[in-house]
């Protein structure tokens, strides 16, 4: 069952990468990137448990925090990047 979960997570990361390449707007790419990051946390946890690593929980914990902070930062950047030219146009 660990193998099935790892395969499912990798397939989901591939689908999210396809959406990140296709995505018509920047927000779709941001959403897909956030999903890839969350699935990377899960992949580190499940794969580390399956392979018997020693310190996988620390790496997954760190990656979960960094993923949230980077997602919020990029989203803030795009939010103000989109609104600033519209105010200049008016």
């Amino acid at each position, binding site marked *: 069952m660990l193998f*099935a979960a790892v395969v*499912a997570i990798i397939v989901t990361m591939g689908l999210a990468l396809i959406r990140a390449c296709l995505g018509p*707007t920047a*927000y779709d790419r941001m959403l897909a990137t956030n999903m890839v990051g969350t699935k990377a946390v*899960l992949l580190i946890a499940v794969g580390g448990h399956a392979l018997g690593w020693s310190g996988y929980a620390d790496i997954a914990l760190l990656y979960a925090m960094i993923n949230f902070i980077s997602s919020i930062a990029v989203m803030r950047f795009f939010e103000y990047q*989109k609104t600033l030219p519209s105010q200049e146009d008016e």
Partner: protein
Amino acid sequence: MDTLLNFLSASCFLIGGFLCITGGVGLLRFPDFFTRVHAAGVTETLATPLLITGIILNQPDISLDSMKLLMIMLIVLATNPTASHAMTKAALHGGLVPLTQSKDDSGDSTEKQATNKKPSDNGGDISTL
């Protein structure tokens, strides 16, 4: 007891993996940004606790790793809906308008979505609401 824990962790892994693939397919096939946010956010919020619970139940005993995995689960449960909500708010401020017509033109909804960006004055109106 051991077989019961193994059965519980295996079912957690199976349901979690199924939800992961469901979220990926929904992210790829839904027509609009806001529906994709729904697909990604809902399935991630349910699939992550199931997979982490499966790992915790699969371990031989309760150790420090179980507490760390519990912390991962709590962090993802707290930050993932926050990120989805903030992303949707950023898209609304950026001028993206949700699809509201479903019955009439369901065939070409993906083509309508490309032309869905309104001019800049509507984005300003939305951001002041």
